[in-house]
């Protein structure tokens, strides 16, 4: 009987087929990206597109190298705003989720406000933040926090509240205290969903920092893009955007990797960034 319990054999292809599939899966994203870049390059060359309309990828890369002394400090500023905003936003989001999960009254009070906060266009309130928090990184951080906390609070609250009531009963039957129930069951149960919220949050954090910079800044990649546009320096604009994309992707992959590290029981069947 035990044997029949244990039969977990899954249909396996021949090793060669599997190996081939594995290699294809590993390199497919890179190949596709390379094809897109080549197509872009060829299109610009063959159609004689002028650089201030759409620079070729080679031109952008050269510009990144050449303007590195200008790009690097601005990148670091935006990175700093992104990370601080992400950290504060995640923390606030998670704390709000705790309040919501543990009090249905607070849920009723807080949830409408939290949803309403997302309906406010950030670009419209960002000037106020400059008025309130000055001209430094803080108004940008606040915009980022506003964008980041929302997905975190929603997914975390959901995770914290979706514990099987039987499990709670089981722990109560041995007189477990609320802290034990939280630390042994609720928190680890919610962890995958908290991490899902953090992944959305980190992607939005970069956007938040740039939005904040657009409203009023004298450094940062968002500021640099505005500046480049005003000079019709499309290549610099694209160079900045490229670095923003790099920041966004690297941070996302980092959060995803940390997530996998802290939830080792989850099989690799979630979104596979293939990077």
């Amino acid at each position, binding site marked *: 009987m035990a044997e029949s319990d244990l039969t977990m054999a899954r249909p396996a292809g021949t090793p060669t087929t599997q190996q081939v599939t594995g290699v294809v899966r590993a390199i497919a994203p890179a190949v596709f990206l390379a094809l897109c870049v080549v197509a872009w390059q060829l299109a610009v060359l063959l159609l004689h597109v002028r650089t201030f309309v759409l620079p070729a990828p080679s031109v952008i890369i050269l510009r990144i190298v050449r303007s590195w002394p200008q790009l690097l400090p601005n990148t670091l500023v935006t990175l700093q705003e992104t990370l601080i905003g992400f950290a504060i936003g995640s923390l606030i989001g998670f704390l709000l989720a705790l309040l919501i999960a543990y009090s249905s009254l607070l849920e009723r009070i807080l949830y409408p406000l939290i949803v309403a906060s997302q309906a406010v266009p950030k670009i419209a309130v960002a000037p106020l933040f400059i008025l309130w928090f000055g001209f430094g990184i803080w108004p940008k951080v606040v915009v980022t926090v506003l964008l980041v906390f929302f997905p975190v609070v929603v997914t975390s609250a959901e995770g914290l509240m979706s514990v099987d009531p039987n499990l709670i009963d*089981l722990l*109560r*039957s041995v*007189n477990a205290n609320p802290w034990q129930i939280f630390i042994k069951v609720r928190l680890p149960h919610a962890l995958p969903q908290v991490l899902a919220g953090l992944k959305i949050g980190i992607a939005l954090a970069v956007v938040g920092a740039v939005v904040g910079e657009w409203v009023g800044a004298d450094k940062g990649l968002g500021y640099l893009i505005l500046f480049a546009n005003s000079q019709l320096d499309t290549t610099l604009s694209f160079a900045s955007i490229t670095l923003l994309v790099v920041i966004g992707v690297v941070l996302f992959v980092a959060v995803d990797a940390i997530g996998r590290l802290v939830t080792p*029981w989850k099989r690799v069947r979630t979104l596979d960034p293939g990077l």
Partner: protein
Amino acid sequence: MTAADLSREPVASPRAPAIEIERLRVAYGPLVALEETSLTVGACEFVSLLGPSGCGKTTLLKAVAGLVRPTSGEIRVMGGSVEEARRQRAFGLVFQDPTLLPWRRTEANAQLLAEIIGGRHWDPGRIDELLRAVGLKGFERAYPEALSGGMKQRVAIVRALAFDPQVLLMDEPFAALDALTRDRLGEVLLDVWRQSKPVIFVTHSIEEAVFLSDRVVVMTARPGRVLDEVHIELGRPRTHAMKESHEFFQATRRLRSLIDIAQGVAAQEGG
């Protein structure tokens, strides 16, 4: 004091009452789940609750475990109140769903409750022994995701017994399993139980109830009440051969007719 109480050997007579339920009534608002329910379970007695859906079997179990507050009536566990018993960590619970924690491996899942209770009730040797007894040797490091339904339920049984509770309460623990696994797990359960403590076992299966129990209590639905009970005159240890015996057939036939009555009563009252 508490430790001394817990280490106490079962009362001399195996039929001496360990759980006494007297005229229990449980109502959820206007909905009466249980009414006028009285039941006594002996110190080492295996009692099954049998009855149609909605007859309050689960409610009865939860009331004994102190998870549902009775509207009226009284429950005494080991001579004390339910709250006292709960403080002494008297209850081992198993549900239909194994409710394992997906982030814990077999071993860690099995010791969850023992961990919360802590102290002298955390005995890794005992957990190891139980895991071997239920046939999970070699799967200590497996995550629940890698286990079959039957294996998960074995872990849940070990988890409930790991801290040596005074009472075992099981709510349709094998209902979600296929018939073969179900039979096998029934034997495993009897094996690890070894007539060491009182069991209340909720089930929908007449054969299962007869095979496992010393006594089967039939309940009616809406509101739940005790209709009648059948003593199972089979010796222990139970064997498969007993399923062919005259006593087994008699008990199942008697229970089937009681279930018919229970359902008839339910239909009449419902209509």
